[in-house]
């Protein structure tokens, strides 16, 4: 599904990712944890194709394709989805209209027929009922005036409608209260399938309690320094990231 090999990324003069390796198989949920400034959000942005980053070495293969050679919209059409840490407001653009434009742009790229408004509405209703999202979100402008929780749930709603193959969740849990967190986690769990993989970038373990990832990675100083099962997340929660730093210090010097 996704293979990241020795990825080096700079932003301006700063090297942020310094030889990152990661492999995700279909149907797996991987969590990436790490301290502030470790490069977690950069990884999400680089995978989705945001400008302003320079890949100086390494490669990213996604479903056999060179991901880094694709435009952001091509990556989306190929099934990659990034749930934003800070979803962006687009005043005056109806949320449903936006999502239909996105879905149809992706379908067009894949050579599939466009969905008309009736068909789309049906799809939306079906997803809404599963996700327990209120109708009113649909008729508002994209993310405008949404609460923090509503914005994050709107991201999950988009995820559900666009049905990607690889979903990257960039700190989707940040700023959410316990109830909102549960709803988001439920939404993600409903979307799990043998063909769909998740890369969950998070700071805290609490989201992982609900998601039960297959693999947990620790990202520090631009590299994956530790990988393990869900128990790794709990250890981190107990000991803090300083514990990781201590453990990697000898390795980093080598």
């Amino acid at each position: 599904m996704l293979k990241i090999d020795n990825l080096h990324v700079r932003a301006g003069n700063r090297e942020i990712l310094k030889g990152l390796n990661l492999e995700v198989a279909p149907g797996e949920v991987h969590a990436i944890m790490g301290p502030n400034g470790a490069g977690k959000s950069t990884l999400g942005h680089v995978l989705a194709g945001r400008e302003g980053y320079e890949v100086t070495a390494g490669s990213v293969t996604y479903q056999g394709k060179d991901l880094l050679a694709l435009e952001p919209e091509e990556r989306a059409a190929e099934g990659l989805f990034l749930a934003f840490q800070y979803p962006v407001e687009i005043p005056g653009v109806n949320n449903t209209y936006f999502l239909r434009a996105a879905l149809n742009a992706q379908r067009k790229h894949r050579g599939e027929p466009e969905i008309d408004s009736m068909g789309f509405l049906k799809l939306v209703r079906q997803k809404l009922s599963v996700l327990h999202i209120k109708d009113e979100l649909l008729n508002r402008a994209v993310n405008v005036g949404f609460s923090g929780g509503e914005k994050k749930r709107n991201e999950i709603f988009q995820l559900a409608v666009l049905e990607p193959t690889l979903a990257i969740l960039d700190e989707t849990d940040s700023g959410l209260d316990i109830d909102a967190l549960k709803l988001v986690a439920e939404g993600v769990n409903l979307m799990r399938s043998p063909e769909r993989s998740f890369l969950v970038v998070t700071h805290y373990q609490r989201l992982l309690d609900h998601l039960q990832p297959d693999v947990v990675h620790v990202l520090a100083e631009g590299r994956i320094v530790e990988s393990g099962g869900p128990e790794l997340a709990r250890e981190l929660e107990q000991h803090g990231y300083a514990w990781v730093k201590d453990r990697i210090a000898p390795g980093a010097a080598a």
Partner: protein
Amino acid sequence: MSAIPRIDPPARTVAPKPLEAGVEEALNRRYEAGFVTDIETESLPPGLSEEVVRAISAKKNEPEWMTEWRLKAYRHWLTMTPPTWAKLQIAPIDYQAISYFAAPKNAPKSLDEIDPKLLEAYDKLGVPLHERARLAGIAVDAVFDSVSVGTTYKDELKKAGVIFCSISEALHEHPELVRRYLGSVVPVGDNYFAALNSAVFSDGSFVFVPKGVRCPMELSTYFRINAGHTGQFERTLIICEEKAYVSYLEGCTAPMRDQNQLHAAVVELVALDDAEIKYSTVQNWYPGDENGVGGIYNFVTKRGECRGARSKISWTQVETGSAITWKYPSCVLLGDDSVGEFYSVALTHHRQQADTGTKMVHIGRNTRSTIVSKGISAGRGQNTYRGLVKVEKTAANARNHTQCDSLLIGKRCGAHTFPYIEVKNASATVEHEATTSKISDDQLFYCRARGIGEEDAVSLIVDGFCKQVFKELPMEFAVEAKKLLDLSLEGAVG
């Protein structure tokens, strides 16, 4: 209120510049209305004098009072100087180099006799005039250079009691109406361009909706400048008597030429008690090329008077074309409880300049006005909103709400806002809101990460920005306006 430094475009050159075939083709794609119709034209030689004014009047067989009215305007114009207060760079205009009258030869007497080439031209512009292809539910008056070449649905309108014809025809058929209202809203000496128009105006549309009649269809005028070296000076007069209603649309295009052409129109609206006039414009005059060569100077005076109690005048404009736009559709709110509205989208791309806005003059009691202005600047475009809200002593409880938003695309364009507020009655409420924003990288990336390509993303964001104004347009026009905006913004990003 924004204070973004402006970049002055260099002086315009008027020398013809040969275009390579490939370039010309590319430009033509962008400005689809840029074709020239090869038709025999009868025109006056360039130049302006009392003789020319008399000649125009004579060509149109006008009554003597009309000739005198024109001459009065001309003499007044001679004493005036062009306005310089607008934030516009205008190369000096040689008024003696312009031809003030151009008309297709063998002017048709009715739509049945119209030259097939003219029908073809309007077909190409998407405004079919002949019966089988007419736009359903919209009556059209087609003005080609200086004259009206045809008006559709005339008989149907007549049955309803609505008069819709060219202003030349109205001068002969309904002289008393024209004489009573012409110049009553925009006097001959109102401003430099209005005075010029009053002297030399050649045609335009006339609408009269009698007491109690709701006009059964949308009325529209399609203005087309075809001939080179000519100016277009049309005059529109719309009167709604008590409790009458009309919705009127105008569209405009011109061929691509590398000289600047002058378009100085005057539009007057009169609404009596409980009457409502809705006036919509989609302006797509040739904007000039990317370097600012050629294009129309669009210097227009539009004003409506809400003379009656509870009357309402609503202006909606989508201004995407023209090299330079100087235009302030205004409302004089005389009647108690009368309402004025102004909704505007103005786009400047490449080297286009626009100084546009409105005046809302509150005189009657409980008068209300709303201003929504959306300015979009791209390329090296310069976009200025200039608006006056004036509340006279008599206008107790007057209310105004102004919202003025600017959107910038790229780093070399400019947006400017000049709101003027004069309040002489303490019971008035005047609100002004303004924002300046850019299409952010965040917005673009968000759209692209969802699968929407860059150009489509810009169009989506701009459309959202303009939504408040587009929803005021009649359905067909809203679709047209959106398409036009997309076309005008081509290549604005990246």
